[in-house]
């Protein structure tokens, strides 16, 4: 028998929870239209246009020595710079969080300077500093090290641009770090080094990894602060973003898009890998 008291309608799958607030349609409509026009459509062009060359054409494009050299340089130096940012970021964040000294707040605000300074400004300033006649470039030249117009110059610019990411990722976590745990370790007889390695660093590891990967991601795509100091010699100091610019100037749209797409795909694969490692790390660290 059919129970007439029960409503016949099946529970309709809902994609939106009911709400008494107005403006959902307008808000979401505006958001989706804007994102569609500004982000999705342009990125669709990036994803689709390289294949005008055909699969073998794209492969041929990316296998050119000049392209592989640029990709290797960009990703390699970005990784190295992000790795150097780890100890530098740890040092600066630790100092800002743990010690009280005159000018601490100013130093804290200055950490954001690489964000605040437009990249072209940072670029010409860094190349003026590290040029053979610049204040630091001349010092390095005396001991026979070429800084500007060499991979080392690119590396310095990438360290500059990535530093705030690591410091700002670490600061809140260091702030919350329980000093009592350290003291407990100390009471139990741990040396300073043991405390740092066994207690402090594991607690900071997830934030450190995410800061380093943000710095890495930024460095890979960085253009303005690098082009002036790089020297831009093909095969030697030509970064991948510059190669895109050069290909566009030659109206090689598909080639430029191929390099751009490769950069995005490689960068995202690396970041997803880091993310997975981090999740694994966090799970392992939990008691």
């Amino acid at each position, binding site marked *: 028998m059919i129970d007439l008291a029960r409503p016949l309608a099946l529970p309709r799958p809902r994609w939106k929870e009911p709400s008494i607030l107005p403006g959902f349609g307008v808000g979401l409509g505006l*958001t989706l239209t804007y994102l569609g026009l500004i982000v999705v459509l342009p990125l669709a*062009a990036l994803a689709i246009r390289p294949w005008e060359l055909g699969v073998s054409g794209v492969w041929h494009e990316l296998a050119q020595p000049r392209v592989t050299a640029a990709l290797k340089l960009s990703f390699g130096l970005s990784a190295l710079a992000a790795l150097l940012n780890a100890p530098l970021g740890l040092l600066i964040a630790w100092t800002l969080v743990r010690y009280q000294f005159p000018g601490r707040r100013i130093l804290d*605000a200055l950490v954001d300077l690489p964000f605040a300074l437009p*990249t072209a400004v940072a670029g010409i300033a860094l190349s003026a500093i590290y040029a053979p006649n610049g204040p630091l470039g001349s010092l390095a030249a005396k001991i026979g090290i070429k800084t500007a117009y060499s991979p080392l110059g690119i590396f310095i610019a990438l360290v500059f641009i990535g530093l705030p990411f690591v410091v700002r990722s670490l600061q809140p976590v260091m702030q919350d770090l329980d*000093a009592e745990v350290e003291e407990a370790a100390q009471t139990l007889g741990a040396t300073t080094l043991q405390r740092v390695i066994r207690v402090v660093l594991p607690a900071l590891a997830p934030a450190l990894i995410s800061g380093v990967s943000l710095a890495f991601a930024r460095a890979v795509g960085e253009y303005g602060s690098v082009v002036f100091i790089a020297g831009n010699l093909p095969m030697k100091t030509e970064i991948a973003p510059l190669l895109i610019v050069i290909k566009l100037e030659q109206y090689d749209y598909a080639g430029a898009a191929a390099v751009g797409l490769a*950069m995005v795909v490689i960068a995202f694969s690396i970041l997803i890998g880091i993310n997975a490692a981090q999740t694994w790390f966090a799970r392992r660290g939990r008691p």
Partner: protein
Amino acid sequence: MTAPAVAIRRPKPSSLRRPGIAPILILASVAVMAGLVVLPLGVVFRDAFAKGVSTYLAAIKEPDARAAIRLTLIVAAISVPLNALFGVAAAWSVTKFEFKGKAALLTLIDLPFSISPVISGLVWVLLFGAQGWFGTWLVDHDVKIIFALPGLVLATILVTLPFVARELIPLMQAQGSDEEAAALTLGASGLTTFVKITLPNIRWALLYGVLLCNARAMGEFGAVSVVSGHIRGQTTTLPLHVEVLYNDYDFVGAFAAASLLASLGLITLILKTALEWRHSGELAAGRKH
């Protein structure tokens, strides 16, 4: 500098503060910051005034420089309000309502931050350049996007799209919608509720987002460099003007223009820090980037 003490930012006493180690770490930090981060700023102003104040002023008043300043202001005046409007709309729909696909939407909003600025310029050329998808149509209808103002605006909008939304979303998420719901129940209209309840709640975060968005919009280089064509006095924004002069070996001119941008960065930094000190409770993710 004097500032009201903010409880959360006061350093905790450290058990690692043994005599000797603190000064070493502080000195090392100051040295790294001075050599790596502050020195470039100093060099900009040193080189801008290398040939005296009059040369500096002449470089800034020169017609191409003035045109570059004007263009930079126009581009920011179009892009920043649009991204602010988008940020509010996106934050409203994402934080006040529960719907499927929200995570994907949030990823999409953040996406422009994870791609190279050069790619953010490239994509517009792929669409509207001479050999772009819509290139022929644009030529037939005599519409210029690439190597013209619309291209500069589009590239800037794409690069700076997440700034306002990113500041508002975590804050509005934390605030919830109880206050709005109360106002509506008491008979206020949707618009009144937004203007009288929501807007005052988010104003500092909105200002913070607009500030960062504007700084980036005015200082953006990579993305606009791709779509500009570098036509002096016509399609060169201030950062591109810096590049053009630098490549012409006009170093005083380049650093003079750069000093304007550096001042913009410094002012932004000061205002941003002031907002963080005074309104830290009303900025959700203000300290994070």
